[in-house]
């Protein structure tokens, strides 16, 4: 399952910019890739296909850098990218979406709250364009799950409710709750019934498959990008230093680290990189199925190789001391200041850094290392699940209201390059934003005050790389397309799995122990011991669960 940090990174809403990071670390598992979430038992994607809306591409906008259409079950598409802002965004919809209804919508927010509807001309303008009144109930994104659980338990459900997948993972009885609280959307959207909502039909099928609970289509999904992370590097400094930005083996990466690191110049090669080293060492994303047995990533010989490599990296002091010494270092600040040159981040972090630094330093640029395997062979890469956030509709509303809400969500699903997208993201031209160089909207003071990411959470849209930095868009889309063939095919691809909570809970404490090994606080030989503890504390139980999932789906 897509983690919160990973997901917010994708949509450029990274909350990981918070200095310290402890807040986040306390609430969520590390943004390692995780298998699908949601259903209590598992359901295979092929069985879900009959429930999903028929995919019809929206002809209105075409990215000038095409992406990759995913044929892998449950793996998101690479949506492609735009190197320029459309000269004249056109309206995607010809008719008013709403019929004058009023709906409350609960959405998370990771940022300063905007003024309420009554004193917010942005909300008023968007509602006027939609033709209905959406009244937002914004809630602190970090404690969103607590409030969502309380409201679900009390049956106090707003007409439209957004719930991120990582919060659903924490809700033990969501499978029951979802039926009690939310409307079954299958009768409205299944197959060709989606026709009245062309922008919802434009969402990838893989994402829709993730919106199925209890064999019913329950929510409108927010699609994701395929990749949980990449190794980002400071391209401008690499070019200036003449370093090799295309290491082909783990050794080459290590040598590169030695070349770059110069503590006297306050320059270290790496921030945290170990999560990218996992696929680099061909450690499976979660489980490997071989010879009728499931082997967990911690149990693979590759994992130990990776530990040894990372240990060497730390021992040689190639990692910035603030990163090596504490969990709290803000790596974005460090790479921004040129104190580290390579680190792991979601692709959204790339944009965030450009936003922070391009202004003052026009040469500032980043790149992502092409995928490589530790031994120079064929690399693998992990993937996110296809939807990260879900929008539900309250159960028991009259048919006309459900249809109106779906029409509103259809409006909100308008992709980059449409009038609706512009309005929902930037507000009204000359009021909330002005058009700057290359026609790119530039938010003004009123916009900064009133416009908040709210309508954007109501359902999703294809995730185009739409940054205002054409050079970076090109690098990003090229990297994504180039990496796609290497996405690991796992034994559970396309199966929605409710991750056993005990198994999820093991991740952080276990990986903390492995971190001790990497940092040289424990010998590598302790890895076996850690795995034994992991198996005892719930790992073996999880293995049985996952094996049953494979058997139930006829894959074992």
């Amino acid at each position, binding site marked *: 399952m897509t983690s919160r940090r990973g997901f917010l990174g994708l*949509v*450029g*809403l*990274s*909350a990981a*910019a*918070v*200095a310290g990071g402890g*807040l986040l670390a306390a609430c969520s598992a590390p943004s390692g890739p995780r298998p699908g979430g949601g259903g209590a038992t598992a359901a295979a994607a092929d069985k879900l296909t009959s429930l999903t809306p028929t995919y019809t591409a929206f002809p209105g906008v075409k990215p000038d850098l095409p992406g990759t259409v995913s044929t892998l079950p449950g793996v998101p598409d690479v949506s492609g990218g735009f190197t320029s802002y459309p000269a004249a965004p056109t309206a995607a919809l010809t008719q008013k979406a709403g019929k004058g209804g009023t709906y*409350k919508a609960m959405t998370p*927010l*990771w*940022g*300063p*709250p*905007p*003024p*309420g509807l*009554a*004193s917010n001309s942005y909300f008023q303008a968007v509602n006027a364009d939609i033709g209905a009144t959406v009244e937002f*109930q*914004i*809630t*602190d*994104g*970090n404690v969103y799950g*607590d409030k969502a*659980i*309380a409201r679900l*338990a*009390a049956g*106090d459900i*707003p007409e439209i409710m957004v719930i991120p997948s990582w919060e659903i993972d924490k809700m033990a009885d969501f499978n029951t709750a979802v039926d009690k609280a939310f409307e079954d959307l299958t009768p409205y959207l299944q197959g060709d019934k989606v026709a009245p909502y062309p922008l919802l039909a434009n969402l990838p099928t893989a994402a829709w498959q993730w919106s199925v609970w209890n064999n019913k289509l329950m929510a409108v999904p927010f699609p994701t990008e395929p990749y949980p992370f990449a190794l980002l590097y400071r391209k401008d400094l690499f070019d200036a230093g003449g370093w090799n930005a295309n290491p082909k083996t783990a050794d080459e990466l290590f040598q590169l680290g030695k070349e770059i690191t110069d503590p006297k110049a306050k320059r270290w090669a790496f921030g945290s990189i170990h999560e990218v080293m996992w696929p680099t060492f061909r450690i499976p994303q979660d489980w490997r199925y071989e010879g009728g047995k499931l082997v967990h990533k911690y149990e693979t010989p590759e994992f130990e190789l990776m530990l040894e490599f990372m240990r060497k990296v730390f021992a040689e002091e190639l990692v910035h001391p*603030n990163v090596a010494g504490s969990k709290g270092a*803000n790596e974005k600040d*460090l790479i*921004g*200041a040129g*104190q580290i040159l390579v680190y792991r981040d979601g692709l959204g972090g790339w*944009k*965030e850094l450009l*936003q922070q630094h391009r*202004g003052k330093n*026009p040469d500032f640029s980043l790149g992502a290392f092409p995928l490589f395997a530790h031994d120079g062979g064929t690399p693998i890469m992990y993937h996110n699940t296809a939807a990260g956030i879900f929008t539900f509709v309250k159960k028991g509303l009259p048919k006309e209201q459900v249809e109106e809400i779906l029409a509103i969500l259809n409006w909100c699903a308008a992709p*980059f390059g449409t009038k609706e997208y512009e309005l929902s*993201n930037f507000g009204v031209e000359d009021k909330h934003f002005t058009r*700057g160089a290359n026609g*790119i*909207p*530039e*938010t003004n003071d009123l*916009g*900064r*005050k009133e416009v*908040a*990411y709210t309508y954007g959470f109501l359902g999703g849209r294809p995730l185009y790389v*739409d*940054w*205002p*930095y054409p050079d970076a868009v090109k690098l990003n889309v090229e990297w994504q397309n180039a990496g796609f063939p290497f996405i690991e095919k796992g034994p559970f691809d396309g199966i929605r799995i409710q991750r056993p909570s005990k198994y999820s809970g093991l991740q952080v404490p276990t990986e903390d122990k492995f971190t001790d090994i990497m940092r040289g606080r424990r010998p590598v030989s302790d890895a076996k011991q850690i795995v034994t503890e992991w198996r005892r504390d719930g790992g073996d139980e999880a293995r049985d669960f996952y094996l049953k999932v494979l058997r139930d789906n006829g894959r074992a």
Partner: protein
Amino acid sequence: MTTLPPWAERPSRVGALLKGLLLTLITVGVLFPIYMVALTSLSTQEAVTEAGGLVTVPSGLSFAAYQELFAGGVVTRSVLVSLGVTLVGTAISLTVTVLAAYGLSRPGSLLHRPMLFLVLLTFLFGPGMIPNYLLVSSLGLIDTYWSLILPGAVTAFNLVVMRAFFMNIPDEVTDSARIDGANEFRILRTIVLPMSKGVTAVIGLFYAVGYWNSFFNAVLYLNDNAKWPLQVVLRQYVLQGQSLIVGQSGVGTLPGQSLPPSLAIQMAIVVVALLPVLFVYPFVQRHFTKGVIIGAIKG
């Protein structure tokens, strides 16, 4: 020549010096973090980046963080909400606590033992978040300011402390008032409360700080974000630390625009949240020490 007990002897120079040094160190230890927080809140992003975190040496001062905080009107509004909730809440809490504590401190009160038992029970068992939510919602308090005040209006701990204090007031004093014809309310108002200024001030401070810092109740019970108190709004800033409007999609970013320094904003938030307590504390502190000392001697 009389021999002085060891604690009454004049300290040696070395001893005095060491003591002074220790006290200075402790004071610096307390003040320095506050200094860093305040300074960082006033620093430019360059200064923050340069320092690699909290700023200790001033370089490049700016009020950008505070301007950003108070620009939207949302923060200002929430300050008013927080002040209102704190004032009203503290008044209600103090009134109820004083009355309940006094009643429970009089041995003859109706059902005072079972009632005290019920109060003490809440030390051991707290209802969970969801039962609380169900209660608040069935009382129709969702989305009202009362949801921030009523669920936590009386804290068992404060009630017990206050009751213990009242019980230490000698019976002779209240008895003499009763002989003069005073009823219980009058005794409470004219005798007991004036003798309990210290503990009342301290408990009032506890309540006020509690209301000022109230965060989770507000997140749970308030759907309308125009009603949010300061702490909730400020935390939204800490979560992102930079204006989300800029961060959300990238297209809207002005390449030349420098984002407000995120760490600086966070520290500005700490300062804003700290100030009222900092202002109130010196006035209550007198009572605070007195209350504690009196309690200690009376035993």
